[in-house]
């Protein structure tokens, strides 16, 4: 039994969350063989890096202000003005640090930043260790042309490449289940994709329950 994982599943696992109560974690913890593609890996690296950078950027800006501040009160005032997505977390951490000393506060907050980064990095490394990233060599223009006719290419050319990656792999590794959290571009075209490619089934991450999938198949 082989799974092909789309970018959103890898992102969900990295950040231990998704829109469906961490279904990505269930997928990754499943014992079946996991595949993906170099295209997914590139997209995943770019997206995860951007997401981690955003959080680090907020921490870094906060720490800069803290280092340039004269008091805890000044730091808190700065946070109240700034429109940070992690503002409440930072305010909470300032309180939890239990100190009025700026360096203590920075060091305490820093521990959480490092903990966050470390956890994400370990998750990314784990994914890299258990997933085989398929590097497609064939263009499969027949499939691509059908995707053009369908309007899929126009909507999301990057997703088309990933579906073709899975098709390429599915020709050698069968049956291949394509797991994705992308409803708009992929799940909504489930039948179309299953009909024109070697992918056995497109499974919406929200509905991921492999026991059901297997029962249906037998």
């Amino acid at each position: 039994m082989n799974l092909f994982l789309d970018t959103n599943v890898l992102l969900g696992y990295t950040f231990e969350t998704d829109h469906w109560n961490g279904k990505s974690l269930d997928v990754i913890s499943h014992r079946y063989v996991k595949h993906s593609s170099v295209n997914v890996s590139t997209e995943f690296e770019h997206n995860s890096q951007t997401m981690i950078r955003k959080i680090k950027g907020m921490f870094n800006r906060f720490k800069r202000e803290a280092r340039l501040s004269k008091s805890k009160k000044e730091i808190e005032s700065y946070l109240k003005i700034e429109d940070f997505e992690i503002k409440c977390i930072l305010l909470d951490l300032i309180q939890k640090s239990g100190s009025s000393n700026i360096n203590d506060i920075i060091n305490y907050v820093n521990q959480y930043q490092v903990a966050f980064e470390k956890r994400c990095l370990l998750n990314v490394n784990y994914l890299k260790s258990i997933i085989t990233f398929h590097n497609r060599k064939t263009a499969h223009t027949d499939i691509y042309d059908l995707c053009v006719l369908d309007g899929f290419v126009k909507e999301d050319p990057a997703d088309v490449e990933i579906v073709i990656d899975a098709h390429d792999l599915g020709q050698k590794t069968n049956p291949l289940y394509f797991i994705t959290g992308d409803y708009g571009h992929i799940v909504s075209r489930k039948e179309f994709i299953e009909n024109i490619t070697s992918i056995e089934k497109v499974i919406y991450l929200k509905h991921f329950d492999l026991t059901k999938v297997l029962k249906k198949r037998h």
Partner: protein
Amino acid sequence: MGKETNYLLEFTFDTLLNVFNYERVPFMKKYYFCKLMNLVDTRLLKQGVDIGYPEFWYMYGPITDFAIVDGIIDHGFTNRYYPDNENVIYPAQHRRNYDIDLKDRRIIESTIQTIWSKYRFETGDNIKAENYKQNSPYKFNTTFQDFIRVVDNDNQTSTPKEVLISNLLDKLLSEFPQNDLSEIEDFYLEWDDTIRLVLDLKDSKRKMELVKVLKGKFWSTFSKGIRLRVNKNIPDEKLAMWSEEYQKAITQQYKDVERIREAIILEDSEINIEPDEYIVKSLMQTAYHIGI
């Protein structure tokens, strides 16, 4: 279209080299020449004489590109003034008539005499310090020269090196020109935070090696941004090339600094507290939701 010879510039070069080194002794390195020219040009501009000297600020202060000057000096600058590719020398053959205003000629001559009286015994580094005093693009640039000095100094210091570096990082933080170089701000803050992470490492040899590597990665990139902003008489094609180099450097060096940071976080960093799981999870969820 033929190139236009810049006689004002040629006259300035000839006068400067004649006054500073009539004997044609090969001692004046490009570094020293550029630092002197910065002082000369600054004074001339203040007196309303624009000699069209191509100049930009880079990693260690004001500098010129001899390839650009080649294009505006008859028979090329390198060929005439820099024959051994090591020393700038008063040319054996030089023009008698420069076709420039007498007034400009007098201002150039007197300015170079003043510079000679004031700086003839100064080292290149002292002249460079004067360049920074008079023309540093930002305080940040000046402070970074101190940072480079401290990081590159392998001798023992009375105050621990980590303390000196940390104090300079704080100073730099307050001086970073965030309005003018906003495109590099994220990279700068990541770099600053990573150096601080490195300073906590126990292995002092590895610590200092990494600080040196990180210093180079940031300074070479920031200087590319400065070069783009603080320059004069540089051809548009060159500026376009610099702009491309700058963008590429930000992307590449930012990634490199992140790789170093990741290695430290995974291998060396110690978390001294037991982080509240709920908060770490909240951070991860926030990252996911702002990215998706």
